[in-house]
């Protein structure tokens, strides 16, 4: 049996990879994918917790997080679609309306 410690470490590494991806990438789709990686890293932590404590709550949370992530991806893709239709681009640095 894999110790929960390895699982949690994997989750942490995945989360950092996702975070770096979010910081460094300008393409919206890739940023979205990185966010998915971060979510899954969290799921992995939940599962590791459930395994460690022998409690099903973590599994249930992971299942709910997956469902929510699916919905979030749908919304995120829809936003990028409409962004693309209005600006012909989904490069995030060009979306600067909040400034000024």
């Amino acid at each position, binding site marked *: 049996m894999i110790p929960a410690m390895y699982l949690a470490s994997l989750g942490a590494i995945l989360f950092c990879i996702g975070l770096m991806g979010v*910081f*460094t990438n*300008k393409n919206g789709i890739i*940023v979205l994918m990185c966010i998915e990686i971060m979510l899954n890293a969290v799921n992995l932590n939940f599962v590791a917790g459930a395994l460690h404590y022998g409690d099903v709550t973590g599994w249930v949370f992971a299942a709910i997080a997956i469902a929510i992530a699916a919905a979030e991806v749908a919304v995120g893709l829809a936003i990028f679609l409409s962004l693309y239709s209005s600006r012909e681009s989904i490069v*995030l640095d060009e979306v*600067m*309306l*909040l*400034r000024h």
Partner: protein
Amino acid sequence: MSDNKTSEMRFLPIIGLCMLFPFLRMFGGEMANGAPFTALESAFLIPLIPIVIFPVIAILGQVNRGDEAWRDRFKEGGMIALCSLAITLSLTIWLAIEFFTNGASFEEPLRQSVFNWINFDTITQDAAGNWIHLQSDSLGVGLWIDNVSMMLLFVASFLCFLICWFSIGYMNTDPINKDRNHRFYAEFVLFTAGMLGMVLADSFLWLFIFWEIMGLCSYLLIGFYYERPSAAYAAKKAFLTTRVGDIFLLIGLLMMYDIYGSLEFAVIFDDPSLHGAVDTGMLRCALIMLFIGAVGKSAQFPLHVWLPDAMEGPTPVSALIHAATMVNAGLYLVARFVPFFDVTSHGHGVEGLGDVAILIAWVGGITAFMAAIIAFVQNDIKKVLAYSTMSQLAYIFTGLGVALWFYNHGEHHAAVIAFGASMFHLFNHAMAKGMLFMASGSVIHEMHHAHHDAHHDDHGDEFDAQDMRNMGGLASKLPITSTAMAIGSASIIGIPLIGGFWSKEGIVAETWNAAALHGGTWLLVPAFLILLTAGMTGFYMTRMWMMTFAGKPKTEYAENVHEQTPWIPTPLITLSIISLLGGFVLAVLGATHWLGEAEALGTAIHEHGMVVAILDAIVHAFLPTEMFLFLITWVAITISLVVGPAMAMRIHGGRLNSGETAPRLISWILPLSSKFGRVNVDDLANSGLADALHRRLYFDELYEWVIAKTVIPLAHALSWFDKNVVDGAIKGIEFGTQKISRDVRNLTTGSASDYIMVAVIGTFSILVLLWGVI
């Protein structure tokens, strides 16, 4: 022209109806409540109605500007003003009737408290630190009506009414005023409210408030032709000069409050602790402060410089504000000093204030002489009258100073005569001078018309319709005006039996009485000055009349003058009759004693019969029992009746063109004036003295020099301080904030990844912090 005449007639019924207002109020009240209103209960309406009418005219005038009916039917607000003043006048007459028929209340002034305006408590902290309640006080609104305020109230409302009537003729027929007369009438009624309110005020506080309303209206009306730089300058000068006096007045009022704990007449005048409990030095200081305020308002030396320039305003304004009513406000204030000075058995004043009285008399004497001598060389008809006003007001100040001196030395009888004569002179002067200004307005108006008719354009050449050197020989062309002017001048000069004679004689005699017979050595100078001024008055008034009405016309315009403007003759005739006979009638009725000690009018007639009363008045005026006063009286009569006018006639007199006749009442003057022969005074007229007089004895220059040496450097210094220190601090704050906000703004890049980075760093920081805590 005939249309205008009928329009005057058409409005008479409306004005007459307005006159019935008190009766409507009385009988209406009777029907409603079963108890009629008394005049005293209605008296608060006297100032209130003009105050209410003021915005009405201003707003309606602005809304209906240029409207045909507004211009013709309402005379651009003049009719509304006239009707409201008719109501005011009728309420005043009603009040006067009630005042005279209620003989019982003569000892005490009529009082009516209208409402309490502001109530406040004075609290203080005791030794233990607790707040304790010291006293309750309130600023009430009330009326105070005694013989002096009754007289002034009548003068003010009567003259306001007549001069408003005159204004409809004077202002509305002048094209330069077209479509802005409503401003004139609105300010006019506001001024009326100020004057009436000041006279009726029952406390120094309200007196001051209405005093300032008058000052404001004076400023606005002098600057009525604000497009003329000279008018704007004159308005500013008048406002600032009177402001100097008003500051002192305010300080005086605060000192009064400090001394008596109240500003109400009822408290201050009736305070039994007046005797001894009051700090004399403090009271003296307060009275001098109040007197400086009066000096500013009444245009006395050394704050007199604004009055001649105030003639830039329309002539009705000069007649009303700067001759007949507002300038009397200062006299009224000084007349209110009597209770402080009265140490006779009748009052409980403070001893040792004689020096204040002497100061008042000195200021009066100096102003009387100085104004009269400047009037010698003025060529502007209104300026002559302005200096004459200053001079005559100075007479009243001298008389009041002497009266206060007598009061402070326990001479009750002499004090009453001096005070009564001064107040009586105020009445005579207001009536005569109001009329003289209206007559001069009539002359100017008709000269202007003649010039306009000759050229059909006003802007072609420099023609001064007010310059007497352009007039001459107008007696046959302006019969009503010339007669009125002759009567008014006679009243001002003090020709025996006419108007001002009765009061001026009293002032001169009492001043000499105090100076020579009661040991008031300090009063000798004012006494001498006003005696001399009596003759000088005779000179400059005669000179003015002769230059305007006698001799040959000096310009072609003066030959074509006609008396044609409606609305103008009526007030002139009314006031001529009052100036001619009013002084005599009132003297016989005992106005001096009524004003001086509230003795009922007509006591002498009641006791001794008509003939004895008339003889008594004449004997008192012409044949004083004291030999010295007898001499003084006759010297005054001689120089004012003979010497002054004869010299003026010798210089300026002359017959009219042949074939022209003056009105019968004055036709004897012109041949008489030519009999004195003529002297050429060109040498004198070009001398240094005449130049100094033309420059008004350099007072304007002096003040400008003083201001340039004191106020302007101070203003520059303060301006530097303001620009560099005050503004510097504020600008520093502004610059710093902008800099910070610019720097902060750079943090918002607008890039999503930056925001996420910041959010992550923030989260980690919080986590680290929590780690430390837990």
